[in-house]
C-alpha cells in the first residue's frame, strides 16, 4: 500500500505513485485509477477530454515544418500521444491549463494566473518532461523522467499554486 497515495482534501484527488513493484501494487493502482475515472464522470469533470481535443486540433494545425514561421519542427502524432498521456494523468482539482505548441515539435501545458505566476510543463516522447515556473518570488526549472506518473515535483507545485477554488 506504500506504493500509493490517496488524498482527500477540499478537492479530492487520487495520485498514484508507482514507486513499488509487485502484483498487489499493480492491483491497487488499477483500482485507484478506476475510482478516479468514475469520479471524473460523477463530477462531470471534463478536463482531460477538453485538453485531448484541443491537443489534437493543435497537432493538426502544426504538423508541417516551420509552422511557427521560423524553423519549428512538425508536431507529430507521437508527441500528441505523449501530451494526451500527460493530460490523462493530471490530478483532479487543479485549474485547466492551456496547450501551447512549441518550436521543438512538442505540446506544452501552461498554467497562468495573472502577472508573475506561470508554470509550464512539456512531456516528450523521449520519456522526459521539461518544466519551468515563475511562481511569485520562486523560480524553478528542470527536466524529469516521465513514465507512468507525473513527478511529485510537478504535482506539488500545481496543487500549491493552481488549485481550483
Amino acid at each position: 500500500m506504500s506504493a500509493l497515495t490517496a488524498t482527500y482534501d477540499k478537492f479530492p484527488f487520487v495520485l498514484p505513485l508507482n514507486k513499488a513493484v509487485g502484483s498487489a501494487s499493480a492491483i491497487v493502482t488499477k483500482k485507484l485509477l478506476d475510482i478516479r475515472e468514475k469520479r471524473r464522470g460523477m463530477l462531470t469533470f471534463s478536463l482531460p477530454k477538453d485538453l485531448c481535443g484541443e491537443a489534437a486540433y493543435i497537432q493538426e494545425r502544426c504538423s508541417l515544418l516551420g509552422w511557427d514561421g521560423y524553423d519549428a519542427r512538425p508536431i507529430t502524432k507521437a508527441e500528441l500521444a505523449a501530451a494526451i498521456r500527460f493530460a490523462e494523468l493530471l490530478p483532479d482539482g487543479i485549474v485547466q491549463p492551456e496547450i501551447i505548441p512549441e518550436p521543438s515539435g512538442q505540446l506544452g501545458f501552461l498554467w497562468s494566473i495573472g502577472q508573475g505566476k506561470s508554470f509550464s510543463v512539456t512531456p516528450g516522447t523521449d520519456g522526459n518532461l521539461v518544466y519551468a515556473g515563475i511562481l511569485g518570488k520562486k523560480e524553478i526549472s528542470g527536466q524529469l523522467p516521465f513514465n507512468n506518473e507525473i513527478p511529485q515535483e510537478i504535482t506539488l507545485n500545481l496543487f500549491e499554486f493552481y488549485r481550483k477554488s
Partner: protein
Amino acid sequence: MKYLKKLLSIFSSSIENPEELSHIVAADEQISRFIFSSDHFKVKGDSKRVLYPAFLPSEKTGTASVYRTVALNELEIWGIDKKYISGMRRDEKVSKGRADVIAKVILENGLSLIPLSEPHPRHADISNYPGEKGQIRLIAMKIAEASTLVLKPTYESNR
C-alpha cells in the same frame, strides 16, 4: 499622392539606413520578435499577452530572430515586416503580431543580442541560450512576461 510617396521614401530611407544604430545593442533599445503563430499569444478582452514559445530558440540554429525597432514608428516597423519578414516568405505566411521588449530584459538573463546585416540592417539574433532545456524555458517565460504584444493592424481588424 506625391506627398505620400515622398513621406514613404523618407520612411524607407530611415528604415534601410539606420545610421543611428550602434554595432552593440544598447540595453534600452526596443527589440521586436515578429510572431506568425496565433498559438504564441493570447488576447482576451483588453488583455493581451505574449506566450513563452515566442522566445524559444530555433532548434536548428539555437537562436531567435529579432529586429531592433528603436526610434521607429508603427508604420516603419510594419514596413520592415512587409518588405523583409512576411514579404520575403515563399509560403505566404504573414506575421500576426509582434512582441516588443526592452533589450535589457534579454541581456539580464544572460543572453546576447548579435546585430546582423542581412536581410536588413536592423536584424539581430538572440543567442547564447543555456544548454539546459528547463533554463531556456524559464528565460523565455521571463522575456515573454516582460513583453508587450502588438497585434498587426490587419490581423486585429480581421479578428
